[in-house]
């Protein structure tokens, strides 16, 4: 599964993308975040408060209960501030 990070999520974790081989118990975006938090202290800190982060699966913003699979591209970022 391809994971992308943007804005301060990227800055604080320290990488802009990573590829993970997802364990079989990952069914939803929420499961993925719980798994990502185990990867490092930085991941754990940045992804701790899911109220301040947003997720997109295959470039569509989704809720945490959205189902995902290995071929998906998942992006994690703060609320968007364009315009």
């Amino acid at each position, binding site marked *: 599964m391809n994971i992308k990070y943007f804005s301060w999520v990227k800055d604080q974790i320290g990488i802009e993308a990573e590829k993970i081989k997802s364990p079989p118990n990952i069914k939803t975006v929420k499961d993925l975040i719980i798994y990502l938090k185990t990867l490092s202290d930085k991941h754990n800190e940045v992804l701790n408060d899911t109220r301040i982060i947003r997720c997109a699966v295959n470039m569509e913003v989704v809720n945490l209960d959205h189902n995902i699979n290995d071929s998906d591209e998942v992006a994690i970022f703060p*609320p*968007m501030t364009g315009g």
Partner: protein
Amino acid sequence: MGDFNLTKEINTIKSQNNNIGGIASFVGIVRSGSNDTLKSMTLEHYPGMTEKMLKKIESEAKTRWKLKDSLIIHRYGKLLPGEQIVLVATASEHRNNAIKSCEFLIDWLKTKAPFWKLEDTISGKKWVSEKNSDLEAVTKWNN
């Protein structure tokens, strides 16, 4: 990403459509801060999703208002105070559709298009937070 020229874009819209009665436009500009505190602003975006969302936002406007044409140009990368960030333009036979849809497009793209602003100020770098006023602006279009 390169700058845009409002007059040139409006002329293109006019030349590609007939029976346009009005064109509304909005140009977003990098503010310098109340005491010229901003040195630069860097816009990050999510390539691929940006194009997808801008298309989606434009097609939503076209389902809500009768438009002859619409255009969104959103720059990214490092921009200086006074530089143009974004252009939204809408063209219709009658003014109301152009004006309303232009406001809708800029309200929607502020919170739905994947851009993030990093401000470099005299006191350091800071990612811009989501504004409540932008969230309120977008909810007024729910119906």
